[in-house]
């Protein structure tokens, strides 16, 4: 085990998971609170389009995914006035994004395998740049929470109550959507686009079972994020399983157990 832990790729993966466990679960709390779960799924497709564009123009694919996701997140703000407004549009966005990604990959003549590997992710292929992006999120997201926690608590509880309490609802929603989009694009490398929920939503859903308020949900989500990610990764190393699916299953099963146990809020 100690030999495995001495490998640079494993150390980078650990660093990414630890940093990701701070920012990403809080983003999951935002997603759950805004009731915009379809958005993160659409963002995975948009990220794939960004990766395809990156491969076409020869820029860093993940950087392109980050920028495209951030722009898309900002553009979605007017639709976020109601969750129904978003869910319909997300179907359209997903379809358009994946079709455009396939088209870009086709006309660029690049090897599409590189792009679609990101559907599954490879945590052991984490680069220093990915760790840096997660590090920025680990500072940015908790800072946003501490800076605007009263407004966030109101907005996530009820949009109209927040608006009548003087919260700049549109602006805060814009910031949240951009942060959510950036977080999803940053997390794709770790577990893949299909399993990115493990890092964001699972800790948030588990935290919702035990948290009685926004501050306690935020705290619990980070604790669960650390437990799921580090626990899952260590288990994968011990059993020589693929890390991505293993840590997702650990997180998923723990969340399921919490729900079955019926912990009262």
């Amino acid at each position, binding site marked *: 085990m100690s030999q495995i832990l001495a490998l640079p790729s494993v150390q980078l993966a650990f660093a990414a998971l630890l940093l990701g466990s701070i920012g990403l679960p809080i983003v999951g709390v935002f997603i759950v609170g805004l009731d915009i779960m379809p958005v993160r799924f659409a963002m995975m497709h948009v990220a794939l389009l960004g990766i395809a564009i990156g491969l076409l123009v020869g820029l860093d694919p993940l950087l392109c995914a980050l920028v495209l996701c951030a722009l898309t997140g900002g553009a979605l703000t007017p639709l976020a006035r109601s969750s129904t407004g978003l869910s319909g549009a997300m179907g359209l966005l997903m379809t358009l994004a994946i079709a455009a990604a396939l088209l870009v990959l086709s006309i660029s003549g690049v090897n599409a395998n590189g792009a679609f590997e990101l559907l599954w992710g490879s945590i052991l292929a984490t680069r220093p740049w990915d760790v840096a992006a997660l590090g920025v999120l680990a500072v940015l997201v908790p800072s946003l929470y501490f800076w605007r926690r009263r407004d966030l608590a*109101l907005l996530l*509880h*009820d949009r109209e*109550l927040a608006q*009548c*309490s003087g919260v700049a609802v549109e602006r805060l929603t814009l910031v949240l959507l951009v942060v959510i989009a950036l977080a999803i694009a940053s997390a794709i490398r770790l577990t893949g686009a299909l399993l990115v929920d493990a890092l964001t939503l699972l800790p948030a859903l588990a935290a*919702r079972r035990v948290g009685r308020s*926004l501050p306690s949900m935020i705290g619990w989500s980070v604790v669960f994020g650390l437990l799921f990610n580090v626990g899952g990764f260590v288990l994968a190393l011990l059993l020589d399983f693929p890390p991505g699916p293993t840590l997702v299953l650990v997180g998923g099963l723990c969340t399921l157990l919490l729900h079955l146990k019926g912990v009262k809020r």
Partner: protein
Amino acid sequence: MTTLKLSSVSCRHGGLSAVNDVDLELSPGEHLAVTGTNGSGKSTLLRAILGLHRDVTGLIEVYGAAARTRADWRRRCADVAWIPQRQAAGQFPLLVRELLDSGRDGRAARRAADELGVGDLLDRPLSTLSGGQLQRAYLARALGQVAAGARLLLADEPTAALDFAGQEQVAEVLAALPVAVMVVTHDRVVAAACGRVAEMAAGRMREVR
């Protein structure tokens, strides 16, 4: 100066007209009860004043100021206290304490919560309250807003979930408020405590007392 002035205000829900050409003036300290059948446009009119309903024509002024810019709406939020019809219990946890603090004068809101019998629920999530407790908590928040300087209280069926004693208590609290009050209600006790009564039917308002 008039607290609230509505000039030819109309609201639509998609293709349907919900409020039709309503004119109204409310002076400082004046209390108006708005009655009428379900779907007659009462709640929509209150929501339009708060900016929660967007499809609005006509002029809505609070203390002579219409709201056009973001700063105007921020001022409107400070000027107007609100008790919503369907208080959000929320899928997402919010403590009673946080609700009360959102009304800008948390201390006054907590005092009001004590008087209304929900002062011991500060650390309870709203989702765990009964309908009556939730309504009292929102009333306490509104009283905190008034203490913080709100000059108009809009209340949408504030006694709907209360027992008889609660209805009387809320009617007394509203009647004692020194600010202008516009209350949508089906409760005769609340309506009787107001100096003016208007009835809405098919989106039109008619003053009956």
